[in-house]
């Protein structure tokens, strides 16, 4: 195995391959920054260009593209409060307040460092687990995934500040929206009210662009002025940001671990990984009230998780051809095109491809993070520009981004409507994050719940007789109890 790793590394010594890796990183960054675009579209667009390449080079290139996307997305998340991709939503919670304080460079420094190191963590775990990939993936089935989703939903629901009623209501709304559309599980078209457009339901990109792009756009366009309300405080530099990651190493390690585990679990990806990681970091912090106001630890939690998940998600993808995240689905398409078939034979016969993938992610994270650190100060300058320019640019990008995924003009309408609705939610105190969690997890929860019952011939025992499923359930109960006691405790104090 070490030999295969060295072989893959040796690829980088070829100038054409290195050049491709650098190009891929740059493309990944751009696709990450632009809202509505992301790893999935980037790989889909670039796939035809890889025709003539050898499989190892092609995979290295495509993974270089994918590896840079999370960091790219964090740039827009921090600077203009618009996540470049869904997995950067949590970065906005603390990254943007830091930018408003004039500490954008610091936030970018944290993101660059946490992203790079988080990716490394995920890749190391991946390499360690390759020999046991079969056993690991065979342990996970619909009951386990359902229990994990339940844990995620409970954790996030509990973190709704102050108004529990509105928080749960928002979460429920999100879940109901996710049920719209044709369900292949039941063969029924639900809640589309005669609309052909809603046959596929409400899509993720209009939701993210609308709720986080357009809502934000309304916010700062209305506010006027510039994004950075104050001049940079001393200690707001990029180097500070790098140090921050090491200051909060426990948070970093835990968030990377969460990201990697969620990545390994098929069917759930970056968005869930970051939400879970952020909320757990907040729950276990000594000063949870500082989260959401510009606490660097929040940025660490979010950005380590979304890069760590990439390493984890490769495991089931190459081991069984089961995608560990949405981005891996397109990578599988790339495999097929180049005649590589993931499965039991891939690890044995194509270890060089597996390592080309790993090296691709590795090099792109190194390059992207380095570039990010160097450019942090200049990028931070964006926060001192008149918001009208930003509003215009973001409006254009949001509209085009919403359109591009399916080349459907109604997606732009959906994004607009959700943007207005999102603004209303924010003003009335309904947490958009609960809504988004409900939206992402609702339909998935139903899928895995139903599948589990079909497997068990209708018996609910299946959730409690399988060890990993039971473990997640117990963890969920533990989180509930812990939160109650903590709430009581601070009330007394």
């Amino acid at each position, binding site marked *: 195995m070490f030999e295969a790793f060295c072989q893959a590394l040796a690829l980088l010594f070829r100038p054409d391959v290195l050049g491709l890796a650098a190009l891929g990183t740059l493309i990944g960054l751009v696709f990450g920054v632009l809202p509505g675009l992301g790893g999935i579209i980037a790989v889909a667009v670039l796939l035809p260009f890889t025709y003539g390449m050898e499989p190892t080079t092609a995979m290295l290139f495509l993974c270089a593209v994918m590896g840079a996307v999370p960091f790219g997305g964090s740039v827009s998340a921090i600077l203009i409060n618009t996540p470049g991709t869904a997995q950067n939503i949590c970065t906005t919670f603390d990254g943007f307040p830091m930018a408003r304080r004039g500490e954008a460079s610091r936030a970018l420094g944290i993101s660059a460092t946490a992203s790079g190191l988080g990716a490394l963590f995920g890749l190391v775990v991946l390499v360690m687990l390759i020999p046991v990939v079969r056993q690991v993936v065979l342990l996970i089935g619909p009951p386990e995934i359902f229990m994990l989703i339940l844990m995620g939903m409970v954790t996030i629901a509990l973190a709704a500040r102050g108004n529990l009623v509105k928080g749960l209501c928002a979460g429920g709304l999100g879940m109901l929206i996710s049920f719209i559309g044709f369900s292949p599980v039941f*063969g029924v078209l639900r809640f589309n009210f005669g609309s052909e457009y809603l046959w596929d339901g409400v899509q993720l990109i209009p939701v993210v662009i609308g709720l986080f792009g357009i809502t934000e756009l309304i916010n700062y366009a209305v506010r006027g002025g510039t994004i950075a309300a104050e001049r940079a405080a001393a200690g707001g530099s990029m180097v500070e940001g790098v140090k921050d990651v090491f200051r909060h190493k426990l948070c970093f390690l835990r968030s990377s671990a969460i990201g990697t585990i969620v990545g390994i679990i098929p069917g759930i990806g970056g968005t869930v990984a970051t939400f879970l990681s952020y909320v757990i970091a907040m729950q276990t912090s000594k000063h949870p009230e500082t989260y959401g106001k510009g606490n660097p630890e929040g940025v660490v939690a979010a950005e380590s998780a979304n890069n760590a998940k990439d390493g984890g998600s490769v495991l089931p993808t190459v081991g069984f051809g089961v995608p560990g995240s949405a981005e891996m689905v397109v990578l599988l398409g790339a495999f097929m095109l180049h005649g590589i078939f993931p499965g039991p034979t891939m690890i044995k016969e194509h270890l060089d491809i597996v390592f080309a993938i790993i090296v691709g992610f590795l090099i792109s994270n190194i390059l992207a993070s380095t570039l990010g650190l160097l450019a942090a100060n200049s990028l931070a300058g964006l926060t001192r520009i008149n918001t009208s320019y930003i509003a215009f640019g973001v409006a254009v990008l949001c509209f085009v981004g919403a359109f591009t995924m399916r080349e459907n003009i109604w997606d732009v309408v959906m994004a607009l409507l959700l943007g207005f609705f999102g603004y209303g939610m924010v003003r009335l105190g309904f947490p958009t994050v609960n809504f988004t969690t409900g939206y992402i997890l609702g339909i998935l929860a139903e899928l895995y719940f139903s599948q589990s019952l079909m*497997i068990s011939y209708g018996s609910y025992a299946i959730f409690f007789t399988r060890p990993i499923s039971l473990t997640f359930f117990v963890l969920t109960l533990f989180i509930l109890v812990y939160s109650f006691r903590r709430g009581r405790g601070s009330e007394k104090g």
Partner: protein
Amino acid sequence: MKKLICFSLLFVLIVLPLLVACAKPAPAPAPKPTPAPAPPPVPTPPPPPPFPEETITWIVPHGAGGFDTYSRAIAKVMPKYLPKKVDIIIKNVPAAGGRTGTADIYRSKPDGYTIGILNIPGHIVSQLIMPVEYDLAKMEYLGLCSTINYNLWVAKNSPFRSLSDLQQAKKPLRSPSYGFGQTGMLVATITLEATRIPYTFVTGYTAAPEIALSVIKGDVDILIESDVVVLMPYYKTGDLRPIAVISEGASQLFPDIPTMKKLGYPELAELGGYRIIAAPPGTPKERVKILEEALIKAMQDAETQEWSKKVEMPLVIAKGEEAKGIVLKQTQLFAKYTEMLKAAQKKLEK
């Protein structure tokens, strides 16, 4: 304020036509009609405008997968065999389970610049049981590129060794599927009903590898699936065992495994999928012919053949006429099964 309005108007008036000119591709130049020759004045009809002149779009009503992969491989080589080498670009339209993409192909301008790949009998069944915006009988068929053959599998340590074992199972056997309306589930329903194997579906899976995994794990008991490419590695490691061959086309792959025909169910041998390429109804006959020839030659091309062997995705080549015949035959076949499928769906809703 007035100044602003003036400026805006000026901008729109000047820039608009510029943008329009740049945004749309240049239209194909109209050819000059050949002048009538000197006496005797026999007027020759003007030759049709040269085709193709611009990029051709190939619609794939699916995301990544078999249809997409075959389309890309063929579309890469096809321009070589067109009178003029234009690009053929793939456009994925996976919405509404492929119905939107198929409707797009049907509704596109019939000028030969849009073609697409069809899921037969998947979209035949859609047309039979629900209102759709296309009529497969009216399409102009260019050819067949591959077939989808189904087999019946079990896991390595499954207690069932033969079809009769399955028929005598005490509990309903769990069979995984992608979901209602998918061809695989249709084939599975028809097979299981015909052979009277007690069954229940586990739906919601999204791809063949997931399904293979679930059989190996023991979450489900039997597997009726086509994706040999995914299943072959498991066959070679012994994790999965084929019990019966359903589609006639798969019999060479597993010569020792009994076919449904031999086991007494010859009607099941006709079940299978076809990946057929077509153009919108009304496309002029000469353009259809040009496209058809290019398509067939592209599939026979050495590069495509080599790719096909390398990735183990066999090409089954047939011309437009034969492809149309397949569509009509499959339509008749599934019309027979419509009632059975509807009844089976009602049963599963309980």
